[in-house]
């Protein structure tokens, strides 16, 4: 996942900060969002295309809550022996329920998120990973979320 560094200019930064939520639900949403940002419809679309092409934004559109659709997310962690790390990473990543997976510097050195359409699949997947790897999968389901978003300095 290495991408060339992109240095957004002041306009890009305004777009990144303003458009993390609240994109209009209307027939010409870029025109409407652009008016708020002081940008024309075409310019906003071009800038978003450029930001996406440069890898500065990973996705643009609606973000769905799996839980609200009857599904579930769960953060999980494992303590993987260093000599088995690559093999276990391959086993974990091979499962489509694993949305992302990070190596972290800690005794619990592998942290991944399970995303499934039904809550029971979280438990089933975690147990399947435990059976396949022989390692404990600690489950950290969210109890409360505080979402504000992320801001780049303007």
């Amino acid at each position: 996942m290495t991408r060339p560094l992109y240095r957004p200019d002041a306009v890009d930064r305004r777009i990144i900060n303003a458009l993390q939520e609240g994109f209009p639900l209307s027939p010409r949403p870029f025109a409407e969002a652009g008016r708020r940002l002081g940008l024309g419809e075409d310019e906003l679309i071009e800038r978003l295309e450029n930001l996406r092409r440069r890898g500065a934004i990973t996705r643009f559109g609606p973000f769905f809550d799996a839980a609200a659709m009857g599904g579930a997310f769960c953060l999980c962690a494992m303590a993987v022996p260093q000599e088995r790390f690559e093999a276990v990473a391959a086993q974990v990543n091979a499962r489509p329920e694993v949305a992302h997976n990070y190596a972290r510097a800690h005794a619990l050195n592998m942290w991944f998120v399970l995303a499934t359409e039904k809550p029971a699949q979280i438990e089933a997947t975690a147990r399947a990973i435990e059976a396949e790897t022989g390692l404990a999968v600690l489950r950290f389901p969210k109890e409360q979320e505080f979402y504000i978003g992320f801001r780049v300095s303007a």
Partner: protein
Amino acid sequence: MSIDTIDRRIVEATQAGLPLTAAPYAEVAAQIGLEEGELLERLAALQTRGVIRRIGIAPNHYALGMVANGMTVWDVDDARASRLGAAVGALDFVSHCYLRPRARPLWPYNLFAMVHGTNRDEVEQKRAEIAELLGAACRRSDILYSTRILKKTGLRLGRDGGS
């Protein structure tokens, strides 16, 4: 809560993103055989119900120079965790903030806050700001730096409803 088959088609058609064209909803509606007006109404209803959390962009912290990120974790007094979690979540350098169950004895932490910075010194400074905000309500803390992204994909719904 669950969604009907038309909503499911909407999720499938938009979960990878909206087209960057002047009339993106008309384009999506045509793809799945809906009128644009019905698509907009359904999207608004999904947002009201919380099935859609937000509509917008997901910034790539790494590509924007925020190459250091630390998952800060805190053992916060349960009675005050909810109020303090909201205060931590409101900090502009925190992208995700959650209360989660502890897994004692290995894991005493209940508050998780993802902190981003251009380097580790900056992340450590921000961690100190959180520590100050939490004050005596926090018994201990740690920070876990990511050393590698092993996998990263968005939510993907299967066509069969995931049975």
